């Protein structure tokens, strides 16, 4: 469990852990393919808009561009308001992926905090785990829908429609998805706590905060990373599900889920409009899941190096 060194060249003789992990990760074909697909999707949504900007048009010009089929000028065609579907896909993907990332960060932070506290401090274990069980018994999708319904207007009014909805959805998903991570981390911490190095650290009088940050947390990083990867996938799915039910982002601030929702009304005439966003969501989630699979294998020292 060494720190990652900055220069890979100096690491040749004693191989660092992360290099081993990477070597093992590379042998997982699905995970590598997933990584390539995910990186290209991320490039598509981040760099794409620089090459393709929505042109300034008058309303008359805009209306003439309605419902264009795919052409050289508009590879994905245009929608019922004459907006370029390619640009909308890029913008939508940006929001979808950032919702996934931020919601994952919130849920992982919450989950590992609860997990570490419950695992390390015996007195907190009971109450925190009861709370986790209670959260697991909540009907999450209905509650998410209710939360969005109740607070969307208020937050949109306070922070503007974009930032408000983003904040609401990200925190709602984060607050309802931390339980798995907390359980996994608690289990790991419970086992780690009995190990000699933690005992040694405690016996020389290290305060609990330092033991946790220096000795416990680095050792539970592997399950946290796997949970984080899989968390991105489920957050993206949850956000698209909310948007698909009409309780997500507003239509002028699209995500892939919202584009799918908008496309459903006209799917008889323009099936491409539902297929592209759906495909994008599915590809992202599939690749993230494969990466999570590969990461789990790569981070498991029992599998690695065989």
């Amino acid at each position: 469990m060494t720190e990652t060194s900055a220069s890979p060249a100096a690491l040749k003789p004693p191989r660092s852990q992360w290099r081993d992990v990477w070597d093992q990760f590379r042998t997982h074909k699905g995970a590598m393919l997933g990584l390539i697909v995910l990186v290209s999707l991320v490039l598509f949504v981040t760099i794409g808009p620089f090459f393709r900007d929505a042109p300034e048009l008058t309303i008359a010009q805009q209306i003439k561009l309605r419902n264009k089929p795919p052409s050289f000028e508009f590879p994905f065609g245009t929608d019922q308001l004459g907006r370029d579907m390619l640009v909308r896909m890029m913008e939508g993907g940006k929001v979808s992926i950032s919702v996934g990332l931020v919601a994952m960060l919130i849920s992982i932070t919450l989950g590992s905090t609860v997990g570490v506290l419950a695992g390390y401090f015996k007195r907190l274990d009971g109450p925190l785990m009861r709370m986790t069980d209670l959260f697991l018994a909540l009907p999450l999708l209905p509650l998410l829908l209710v939360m969005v319904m109740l607070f969307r207007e208020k937050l949109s009014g306070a922070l503007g429609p974009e930032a408000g909805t983003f904040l609401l959805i990200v925190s709602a998903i984060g607050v309802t998805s931390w339980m798995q991570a907390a359980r996994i981390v608690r289990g790991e911490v419970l086992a780690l706590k009995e190990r000699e190095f933690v005992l040694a650290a405690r016996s020389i009088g290290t305060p609990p905060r330092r033991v946790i940050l220096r000795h416990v947390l680095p050792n539970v990083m592997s399950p946290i990373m796997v949970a984080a990867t899989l968390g991105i996938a489920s957050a993206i799915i949850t956000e698209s599900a909310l948007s698909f039910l009409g309780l997500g982002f507003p239509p002028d601030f699209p995500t892939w889920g919202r584009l799918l929702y908008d496309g459903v009304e006209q799917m008889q005439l323009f099936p491409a409009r539902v297929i592209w966003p759906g495909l994008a969501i599915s590809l992202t989630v599939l690749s993230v899941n494969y990466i999570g699979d590969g990461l789990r294998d790569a981070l498991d020292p029992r599998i690695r190096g065989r």
Partner: protein
Amino acid sequence: MLTFTIRRLLLAIPTLLFISLVIFLLLELAPGDPMSQVPLTVPPEVKQKMREALGADQPMFFRYMLWLKQFFIIEPLHILGAITGIDLAGDAQRIISWQSRSPVADIIAQRIPQTLTVIGAAYVIGVLIALPIGIYSAYRQYSWFDQLGTFISMIGFSVPTFFTGVLLIVIFSVNLGWFPSIYDTTLKVTDWASFLKQVKQMVLPVSVLALYNAAQISRYMRSSMLDNLGQDYVRTARSVGMTERVVVLRDVLRNSMIPVVTVIALGIPTIFGGAIITEQVFKVNGLGQLLISAIHANDLPMVQTLTFIFAILIVLFNLIADVLYGILDPRIRYD
């Protein structure tokens, strides 16, 4: 076992009370007002009377208690009364939907059959597909069948149901025209033709949900079979000359089913959540669709009741899973 069941049942009560409090408080923060749909011409003192009649001017604690009483005592009495034909509840105040002004329980009772037919069929079919696939994948680990199964199940739980549903509609009802895209709930099954029609309209939603459920359950089945196939008793069974069929299908399968059965039980409440989306895609007017329309219409009593019913289902099936595990596995002793 019995004491364990009773203890778990007792423990479920505070859990449910807590969940009901969370749901109640969440909705309490809502900006909606029960009087918002009453015409403006109604004078304020009449409005005040209506508010009092609904109990909306009481302190929060009393309203919570009233809701609990309505949910746990009055509504079950009404349901019991409807079944037996005896008027048990009298004219006690029921939970009334703000949307339709009729008791919430009646509307829910109308919607349950649709959800149960579609979602129930999908879950049963999903389990029936998943078990053989899981068994065979584990028995021939790393064969092409196993690889294919792994890939398909990865797709099954990565591709969201709202996309598979829409995709199937585009392919099978828009392009090929084989199945209808909208579920017709007014259809009554009376003869062979209407039965065929019913089957036809169920094919798409059922296959979407069945694929999703089968993907998860087949993975559990596979890993549970793999755990057991490596055990010593399997070698013993083979060495005493039992046929492969008996070893795999009797000894290994029975032991592997223990965790899978609990997973199946745990999955039942979550399919109601997944059903919200599928019902929306195929316009099945079941419970999920009812919840969505109630949310859009700001119908708080309906939302409250439905969410709480979902919570009860989760708690109940968690309990069933735990008890089943204890019954099936003699090594597990709770007391």
